[in-house]
């Protein structure tokens, strides 16, 4: 470095006096004459000014994140992380569902559908049903038993878990109706006939208990002067079906 040769020149005399400088002296010293070491110093200051300017006047890149506090950034990051976890879990669930549906479970799905179909066929009366059940005979020569009593009996049997019920000639399904006519009680427009026979498939003892409760169907029939007789049957068949709707 050629500034070696100006150790005492260049406007920077050695510390000849330890006396405190006064202000005018300092200003005098600041106004040096240009020389090579001064140029180096000037260059350094230029670099400093450049760096400071660059650091302060950043070409605005996303001030939102730059000026956000650390706590806010952490909060934002946490939110994003938890949201990602939720979405990941959702994606995993849907992927598993897709895999189950694609892989082999068509057999299971079909079997489940068939089970539901059988149950619905029983409920809608489109298929014959056999099994243990309760058989009821109501002898009513004076025609005191009207539709309301029959309806009560059907409701009680349903409550007791009867899968299928036949009243007289008709299978009782969801849209069956009972009425009174000159020929006696009618079900779905057909006379029930005498004596009135009701057959119900279900747990026999439960059905019998439902009929025999105090103030229930049996009592109601008897107070009207009719004869109520019920017998459980370990195996009976209701073969009457309702034609399947063509809808």
């Amino acid at each position, binding site marked *: *470095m050629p*500034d*070696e040769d*100006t*150790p005492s020149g*260049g406007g*920077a*005399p*050695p*510390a*000849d*006096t330890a006396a*405190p*400088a006064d*202000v005018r002296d*300092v200003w005098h*010293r*600041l*106004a*040096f004459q*240009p020389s090579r*070491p*001064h*140029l*180096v*110093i*000037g*260059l*350094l*200051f*230029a*670099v*400093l*000014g*450049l*760096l*400071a*300017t*660059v*650091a302060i*006047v*950043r*070409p605005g890149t996303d001030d939102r994140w730059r000026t956000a506090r650390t706590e806010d950034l952490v909060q934002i990051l946490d939110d994003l992380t938890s949201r990602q976890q939720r979405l990941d879990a959702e994606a995993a669930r849907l992927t598993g569902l897709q895999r189950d549906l694609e892989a082999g479970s068509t057999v299971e799905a079909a079997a489940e559908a068939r089970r539901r179909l059988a149950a619905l066929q029983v409920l809608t009366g489109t298929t014959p049903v056999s099994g243990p059940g309760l058989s009821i005979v109501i002898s009513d020569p004076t025609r005191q038993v009207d539709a309301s009593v029959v309806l009560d009996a059907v409701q009680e049997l349903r409550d007791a878990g009867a899968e299928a019920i036949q009243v007289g000639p008709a299978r009782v399904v969801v849209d069956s109706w009972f009425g009174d006519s000159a020929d006696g009680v009618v079900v779905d427009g057909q006379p029930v006939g005498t004596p009135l026979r009701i057959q119900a498939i279900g747990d026999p003892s439960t059905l019998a208990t439902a009929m025999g409760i105090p103030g229930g169907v049996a009592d109601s029939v008897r107070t009207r002067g009719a004869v109520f007789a019920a017998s459980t049957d370990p195996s009976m068949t209701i073969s009457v079906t309702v034609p399947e709707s063509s809808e």
Partner: protein
Amino acid sequence: MIAVIGLLAGIALGLLWHPVVPVWAEPYLPIAIVAAMDAVVGGIRALIERRFDERIFVISFLSNVLIAAFLVFLGDQLGVGAQISTGVVVVLAMRIFANAAAIRRLLFRA
């Protein structure tokens, strides 16, 4: 005087040119500036005490900047970049304040 001219020239250059700082250099920029300011304030104090030497100033300026940048680099490598940056800035700021206090005493006797 030439220092002031250089400073103004650098500021003007920065304002007009808008240089883009590389991402790897961003952590070093503030540290380098503070280190350079430390050297500048030390130089002013030496000037007032009449023992200013250009060679010492230039060397201290450059070495301050380089050492500060190296410390931050080292801290980054060790995983304590933020802490060491804070430490460097604190130490340099303390030196700046000490030198500024000395300048104040020398100039204003206060």
